[in-house]
């Protein structure tokens, strides 16, 4: 049986770990709310943007745009892998990395070159360790992404797609379903699906006869990159909210486990103490009996 002082030391250490995990849990809970509010705050822009896109698409029907065009040959693609800067968030990062790895392996077996853009230190470190140097690595943005970050990521892929250097762009991120549930998701950024534009056009207000300045095609040309940026921004925000959600869940179970451990350690401690006392009594009784004889 372990000695009493050792058990007590363990209890103190587990207690202090529990304090840390509980604090992290509470911090994550607070941050989820903020991240969710940010997603909400972005909704009006996204909605208005789709409305404008719909109106423009209705008038520029059948307009060709390099970002809408599927390339005939598929030689090189870019994968944007969105993770967090910090760990202790359960399977949050490993889900994304596994999904990225699967995609890369699948594409490479078809002879496609895959470039990687990483968001978050975790993805950066993971790919470098595997000898894949990201074409761009973002860090310290995954906690509070801004639209400018999204724009900057878009600036790496949009021109490349336009000039046929790249034939497909994907983003892999954690979709925020609710506080307790996040799931990794693969989203195709480029080419933009024709259906997106068509659906937006169908939802547009038919009655309004819009004028466009300079003209519908030029506005569409400017609008499509913005659309891609909005999608990236949304993915970054969802990932931020998911990170806090995943961390909260992970820290909650860590806290629960610590409580359980303390209970079982206290039980062992009490049992050991009781055993020691019993032992002492037995010795005293034994000693007294020896004197009587």
């Amino acid at each position: 049986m372990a000695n009493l002082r050792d058990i007590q030391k363990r209890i103190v250490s587990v207690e202090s770990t529990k304090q840390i995990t509980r604090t992290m849990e509470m911090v994550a809970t607070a941050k989820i709310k903020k991240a969710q509010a940010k997603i909400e705050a972005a909704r009006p822009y996204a909605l208005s943007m789709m409305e404008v896109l719909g109106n423009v698409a209705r008038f520029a029907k059948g307009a060709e745009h390099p970002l809408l065009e599927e390339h005939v040959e598929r030689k090189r693609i870019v994968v944007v892998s969105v993770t967090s800067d910090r760990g202790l968030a359960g399977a949050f990062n490993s889900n994304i990395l596994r999904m990225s790895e699967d995609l890369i392996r699948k594409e490479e077996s078809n002879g496609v070159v895959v470039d990687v853009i990483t968001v978050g230190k975790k993805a950066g470190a993971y790919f470098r360790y595997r000898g894949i140097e990201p074409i761009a690595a973002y860090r310290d943005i995954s906690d509070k992404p801004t639209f400018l970050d999204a724009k900057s990521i878009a600036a790496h892929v949009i021109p490349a797609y336009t000039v046929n250097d790249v034939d497909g762009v994907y983003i892999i991120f954690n979709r925020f379903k609710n506080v307790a549930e996040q799931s990794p998701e693969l989203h195709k950024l480029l080419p933009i699906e024709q259906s997106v534009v068509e659906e937006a056009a169908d939802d547009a207000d038919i009655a309004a006869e819009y004028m466009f300045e300079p003209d519908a095609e030029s506005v569409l040309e400017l609008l499509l990159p913005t659309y891609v940026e909005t999608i990236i921004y949304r993915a970054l925000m969802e990932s931020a909210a998911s990170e806090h959600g995943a961390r909260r869940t992970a820290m909650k179970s860590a806290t629960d486990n610590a409580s359980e451990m303390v209970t079982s350690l206290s039980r062992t401690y009490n049992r050991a103490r009781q055993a020691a006392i019993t032992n002492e009594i037995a010795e005293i009784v034994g000693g007294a009996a020896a004197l009587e004889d």
Partner: protein
Amino acid sequence: MARTLICEIVTPERIVYTNEVEMVVAPTIDGEIGILPLHSPLVSALKPGEIRVRFDGDEVEWFAVAGGYVQIHEDKVIILADAAVASSQIDVDRARSAKELAEKRMAELPVDAEADIDACERDLKWCEIQLEVAGKK
């Protein structure tokens, strides 16, 4: 009471401004336009510049805008801005130091890094506009 229109300035990050106004002046890429009530439906791209909003007779509010779109429909003006900030909210010191930083970065960039240079120029322009609009009210 004069006829009014609803003006909404939204950025991807938040709603910057929403109010019932009498006139909006916005910098489209073909030049500045003034928007009054009963304007016909219009969608236009905006270039970086200033937005003026007039309301309650002679009250004017100024905004710096980093580019975006404007949609006018049934007395509702929606400005979708990449970034926008009211003149009273502009942080002059921050804009100034951001400008210096952008200038420095620009000088260090190799000439063939077109994407980075474009981004830098955009940053720079945005800082300049903020500084320009900051004092106005």
